[in-house]
């Protein structure tokens, strides 16, 4: 099994911490789903506010690994400074690198992304780049030192699933050694299962769980779906056939007409 910078995941599920109805529900979603990695972020805090403190204690209580992101950064400079602040606050070399190129689609700026990935790698970070499914971009990221790739399925928060299955398949075929995570756009467990059936190593979710009618139950549903997809990939799926064949051997059928 492919490892994430030396860490083997307990489960192929990574879960975001934003947009839940309440911190308690968020905590439940993690406990119930067994998600092994929680993505977190940073924001400005006023003196005496201590909101970050409270959130931090909640996260610490989850017993998951923490993956800080650089959400909302539009430049290499912002992303790098944010990464440094995150490393100090969260005490980890892991960084989910987001260099956003567009405020509507929130898609990666693949130019800033590769540059930031190279710099951060040189500075000792272990980079989880949020990228498109572009093979060439992914090769650049690997050359820059990334040992994990996190292509989007579709735009963040869209829930559209896997917009370019062909592109994701190509990545799996071309990076047999690199852990691949579908990050963003997954809206239903069937999408997550499909990603794992393609041979991906994990799925990173947030909106589909946090905005579900019942986030805790939905988190569990996704946990099962990713394990189902992973198991199916290992167990070797049947090839679809254009010709139908009987499930019941016709040999020895009684003659009754």
């Amino acid at each position, binding site marked *: 099994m492919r490892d994430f910078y030396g860490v083997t995941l307990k489960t192929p599920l990574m879960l975001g911490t934003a947009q839940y109805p309440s911190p308690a529900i968020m905590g439940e979603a993690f406990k119930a789903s067994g998600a092994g990695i929680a993505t977190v972020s940073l*924001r*400005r805090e006023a*003196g005496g506010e201590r909101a*970050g403190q409270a*959130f931090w204690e909640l996260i610490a209580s989850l017993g998951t690994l923490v993956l800080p992101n650089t959400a909302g950064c539009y430049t290499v400079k912002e992303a790098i400074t944010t990464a*440094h602040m995150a490393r100090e*606050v969260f005490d980890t070399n892991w960084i989910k690198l987001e260099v956003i190129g567009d405020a509507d689609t929130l898609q990666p700026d693949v130019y800033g992304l590769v540059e930031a990935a190279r710099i951060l790698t040189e500075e000792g970070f272990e980079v989880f780049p949020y990228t498109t499914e572009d093979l060439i971009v992914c090769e650049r990221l690997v050359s820059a030192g990334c040992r994990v790739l996190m292509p989007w399925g579709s735009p*963040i928060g869209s829930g559209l699933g896997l917009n370019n299955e062909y592109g994701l398949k190509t990545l799996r075929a071309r990076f047999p050694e690199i852990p691949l995570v579908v990050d963003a756009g997954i809206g239903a467990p069937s999408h997550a299962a499909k990603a794992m059936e393609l041979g991906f190593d994990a799925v990173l979710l947030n*909106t589909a769980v946090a905005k579900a009618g019942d986030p805790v139950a939905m988190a569990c549903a996704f946990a099962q779906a990713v394990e189902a997809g992973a198991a199916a990939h290992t167990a070797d799926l049947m090839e679809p056939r254009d010709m139908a064949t009987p499930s019941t051997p016709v040999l020895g059928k009684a003659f009754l007409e």
Partner: protein
Amino acid sequence: MKIRLNGEATEIAAVTLAAALDELGYGEAKIATAVNEDFVPVSQRESTALADGDRVEVVAPMQGG
């Protein structure tokens, strides 16, 4: 002197980042800091002098996707 703290004009007496954080009530809060868009690690807060007009950012953990 006058600095910009998280984008807000703020008057402080302190002359180092560390002192400013105390003065502003951050105390033991779990925070990270940047001055004029450069990260300043905890270890350098004492030795980081602030000047009039400096842009100081103080961030803390929050939810993220």
